[in-house]
């Protein structure tokens, strides 16, 4: 590689990838955002328990409605606004930038339970960005959002590469979790397209990359957000009493 190309590559490396971290650190967030992510390690598809899945969701918009670069820019800037109701994505104040950590408080359909987790921005450039999951998240893996031009259209894509983190979530996937995941990204892409005044049909392609479960990873359950979110929720009254006692003590 000549010197100019080396400089360009180094610049891309420096700006597009997150810096190395051993454990996640969450910057300032709204008070209502539940943070069970600080101190956790990242977890990729290799660290998960369940079968490995690659799921690709695509929506095609007319090129004249939006360019791929503008679509990605909008998606990054307004990412939480395209999520379905009932799920909160607390983006970092600096936005979708490599290394930043976002919190997710997701409602479990059919219940009053909220799962508190998050993601880290692993990679971001003008055409795509990738979010990677922490330990305890429902899935171990990453999701890449991208936009490309194809046959005169701007194709928006969300592609997930993941395993369920632990046996609880693997069972959950088998009992309707896959359909919920599909619905989440179907709704997100539909909302994104509507932002540009376009109605779309979302195409979904699912590939089971690895049919084997990694049984030795059953111990991931110790980090499960299903368990720790429940513990957090059960502790709500005690935290309220502690805050009240603190106010009384300090007048």
């Amino acid at each position, binding site marked *: 590689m000549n010197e100019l190309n080396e400089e360009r590559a180094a610049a891309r490396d420096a700006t597009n990838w997150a810096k190395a971290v051993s454990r996640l650190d969450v910057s300032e967030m709204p008070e209502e955002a539940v943070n069970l992510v600080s101190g956790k390690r990242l977890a*990729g598809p290799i660290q998960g328990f369940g079968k490995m899945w690659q799921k690709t969701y695509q929506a095609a918009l007319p090129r004249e409605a939006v360019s791929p670069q503008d679509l990605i820019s909008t998606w990054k800037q307004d990412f939480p606004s395209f999520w379905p109701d009932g799920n909160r994505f607390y983006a970092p104040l600096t936005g979708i930038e490599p290394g930043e950590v976002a919190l997710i408080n997701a409602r479990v359909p059919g219940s009053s339970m909220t799962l508190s987790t998050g993601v880290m921005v692993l990679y971001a450039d003008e055409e795509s960005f990738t979010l990677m999951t922490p330990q305890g998240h429902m899935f171990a893996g990453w999701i890449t959002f*991208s936009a490309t031009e194809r046959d005169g259209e701007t194709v928006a894509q969300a592609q997930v*590469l993941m395993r369920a983190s632990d046996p609880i979530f693997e069972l959950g996937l088998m009992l309707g979790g896959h359909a919920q995941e599909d619905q989440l990204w179907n709704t997100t892409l539909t909302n994104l397209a509507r932002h540009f005044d376009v109605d779309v049909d979302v195409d979904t392609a699912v590939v089971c*990359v*690895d049919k084997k479960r990694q049984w030795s990873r059953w111990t991931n359950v110790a980090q499960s957000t299903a368990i720790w979110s429940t513990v957090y929720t059960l502790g709500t009254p005690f935290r309220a009493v502690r805050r009240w006692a603190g106010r009384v003590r300090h007048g």
Partner: protein
Amino acid sequence: MTEATATFDVRRHGRASVVDIRGDVTAASEDVLMAAYNDVGDVSAIVLNFAGLDYMNSGGIGLLVTLLVRANRRSQQLLAFGLSDHYRQIFELTRLDEAVSIHDSESAALSAAGAD
């Protein structure tokens, strides 16, 4: 998305195959990488040479995961050498290094693979 610009050249070395990677590895490299994998033959180890790598984005890392799954299915070890400090950190960040061992040289990788 960036068009495929990476090349993957395979050469045999005893019980291992070395895959020389050049260019930009992105999701668009999938067909070329998998074609190279089909050429590695019945070996016990696949050694990835990243010395000629110009750039890799997150799509490229995802390809390495699927390559790893295919190699594991055939009980093949996956090793790497030639990574820059930056990409060693990316392997650590994505925890890919827990499944793909990283070495300082081709000879070290081949030795670790038992193919020297």
